[in-house]
């Protein structure tokens, strides 16, 4: 039987009435079934890309778990596409040994009305690096929880998160990066657009632990609000227990500003067209950053599906 479970709990809580301390999801824990549990290892040097297709397989409340271990000095790109017409939970566990470089390029794409939960956890050793490109597109609800630990000195994260939510979609994102090692670096960029009645929560936390001297963390988010009934919640948190660090975050939320509209208008592009261009832009930029034709095609296909009208869909 479905009951309410709570996911995407950030490292720090705030006023409960804001509704950002967790996400409530209807889920049948008893019916949850492990559909797959796969392990991959990348050896030192450049490895062939790993492609993960996580689908519901026709089962409701399925769980798929993928564990990727990058040995010292390994280089690996993981393309992960999660699609779900039924409630699905997917988990990607990453471990990067000294000097390993992981790229994760991810598309979270539930079908209309479906719930997709995704958990990513990463442990990075000395001078290991994770580049995360995550796209959330679809007609359902996506709950993405990214927990990244920069444990080793010099470990680094760059995260680029993009989303486009329309109709009554929900995009609920939590990203926490713990900076434990010395001279670690985190750089988080989130951008997206909310159309119609879409709702989005983004909790981004940079957590400088004691001992992370010389570390730097930055986070910024740009949200384009395009729907009359859209709602955006942004919680950019910095937790700091170390003196010698630099942390910063910024957020810009709203509709297109007058200068941008004027720029488009002077080129004969009206407001609606300008909004559509910019709503696509954040997603297309990330799709191109994937540097993979097959992934880009999937992402752009999902984008087109989100943007198509009801009539076109039918």
């Amino acid at each position: 039987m479905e009951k309410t479970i709570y996911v995407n709990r950030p490292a720090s809580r705030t006023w409960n009435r804001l509704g950002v301390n967790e996400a409530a999801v209807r889920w049948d824990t008893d019916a949850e079934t492990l559909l797959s549990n796969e392990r991959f290892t990348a050896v030192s040097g450049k490895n062939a890309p790993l492609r993960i297709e996580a689908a519901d397989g026709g089962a409701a409340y399925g769980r798929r778990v993928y564990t990727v271990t990058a040995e010292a000095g390994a280089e690996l790109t993981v393309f992960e596409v999660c699609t779900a017409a039924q409630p699905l939970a997917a988990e990607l566990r990453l471990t990067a040994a000294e000097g390993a470089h992981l790229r994760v390029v991810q598309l979270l794409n539930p079908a209309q009305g479906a719930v997709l939960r995704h958990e990513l956890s990463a442990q990075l050793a000395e001078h290991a690096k994770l580049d995360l490109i995550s796209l959330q597109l679809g007609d359902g609800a996506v709950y993405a929880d990214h927990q990244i630990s920069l444990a080793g000195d010099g470990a680094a994260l760059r995260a680029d998160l993009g989303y486009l939510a329309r109709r009554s979609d929900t995009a609920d994102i939590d990203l926490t990066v713990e900076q434990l090692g010395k001279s670690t670096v985190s750089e988080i960029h989130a951008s997206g657009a909310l159309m119609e009645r879409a709702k989005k929560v983004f909790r981004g936390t940079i957590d400088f632990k004691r001992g992370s001297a010389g570390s730097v963390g930055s986070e910024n988010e740009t949200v384009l609000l395009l729907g009359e009934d859209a709602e955006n919640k942004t919680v950019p948190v910095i937790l700091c227990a170390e003196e010698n660090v630099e942390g910063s975050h910024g957020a810009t939320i709203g509709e297109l500003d007058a200068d941008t509209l004027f720029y488009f208008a002077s080129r004969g592009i009206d407001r609606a067209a300008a909004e559509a261009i910019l709503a696509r832009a954040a997603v297309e930029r990330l799709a191109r950053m994937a540097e993979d034709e097959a992934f880009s095609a999937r992402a752009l296909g999902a984008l087109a599906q989100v943007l198509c009208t009801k009539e076109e869909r039918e």
Partner: protein
Amino acid sequence: MAENREKTYVADVDRSIYDIRDAEHDAYRMESGLTPEIVDKLSKEKGDPVWMQQFRLQSLQIYNELRLPDWGPSLEGLDIDHIATYVRPNTKMQNDWANVPQDIKDTFERLGIPQAERKSLAGVGAQYDSELVYHNVRDEVAAEGVVYTDMESALKGEYADMVRKYFMKLVTPRDHKFAALHGAVWSGGSFVYVPKGVHLSIPLQSYFRLNAKGAGQFEHTLIIVDEGASLHFIEGCSAPKYNVANLHAGCVELYVKKNAKLRYSTIENWSKNMYNLNTKRALVEEGGTIEWVSGSFGSHVGCLYPMSILKGDDSRMEFTGVTFAGAGQDLDTGAKVVHVGKNTSSYMNTRSISKSGGVSTFRSSVVVEKSAKGAKSAVSCQSLMLDSESRSDTIPAMDIKTRDAAVGHEARIGAISNDAVFYLMSRGMSEEDARALIVSGFADNVSKELPLEYAVEMNNLIRLEMKGSIG
């Protein structure tokens, strides 16, 4: 002779001016704890009207129903069973300092209040433990129709209906557990009414002093600035340090009417055994402005987030704050704003400093309702970590429900630049002075918004806190 110095020089003396304890010659001290009997007794002791007696008991019921917050600093060390909620000093309220008992008067003299009144204030209220001991307003200000009196007089006198209309309507006892506590045991505080079109060019000030060990202070401040009027209200507070917890759970309700303006400035310097769980809120009508200026230096634990509800179109708020958390302090401060009216604007500009194991948290909330078309909000917060024993957290939240809004947020955490320290030392400063100067400069967003005397006091508080920060 510290006692004879002008307020401008107060901060040149050491912290002992805040830490001096007067012997307790209370006329009445309520037993510790919180029961219906105690609340009823308090109400009778104060001669409340019937509606207030009932209000207190209802608030107590709500207090017992509500849970402690599951976020923010730990309140484990606070045991309400060991807090005396009402301590009446051994004097009635006076309007002449000469009639205030000598020891209490001396305390306020050391704090510079009578001097400041003579020099630069339109009126002063001085509360000692649970009751006001002095209240006075200049004749020329009263002649303009400005009402500045203690809450008890307002509750029973000619403003009784106005008090009843506004009292705890903005911050209701259901708001949170300590608002309910306040509703049950409030005592003291000030009532201010500024009539339509009246502009006070010099501020009013209330000063709250808690002398009694293991006691709570629950003053209520209710200010109504009517249409087109303006006011600057200053609030100061301090207490001597004890080895048991003291509690401050005051409540400030501000009503800013159409095209009115209110600046509310606070220099909070409670002793470091104090739990400061104060609630402040402003309701701003069309074209109105609320400005908060806040310096938080004292308290063991502080939770303070002045809230502004921008109800009227074109209303605005500005919050300027600095928080300095030293050894043994966990100060969770910030601000909240709700945009309701069209074309409303808000700006928060804060600095926080943590040192010697202190924990400083900036917490904010910006809510833009669907009705708030054209709303603009900007939040800027900067934090300085002076050592790795301390913590500095930034926890802002934004909830935007209309597309027609522009909301910006920026935050930065870092340490003092070694280059800047080196530059100042190369010009003959000691390292301690160099660091203190940099910290004072870091906090100048607040000091430049304060009247000169208070800015000097604030900078000297920073200097006091920075003493011994090297080595």
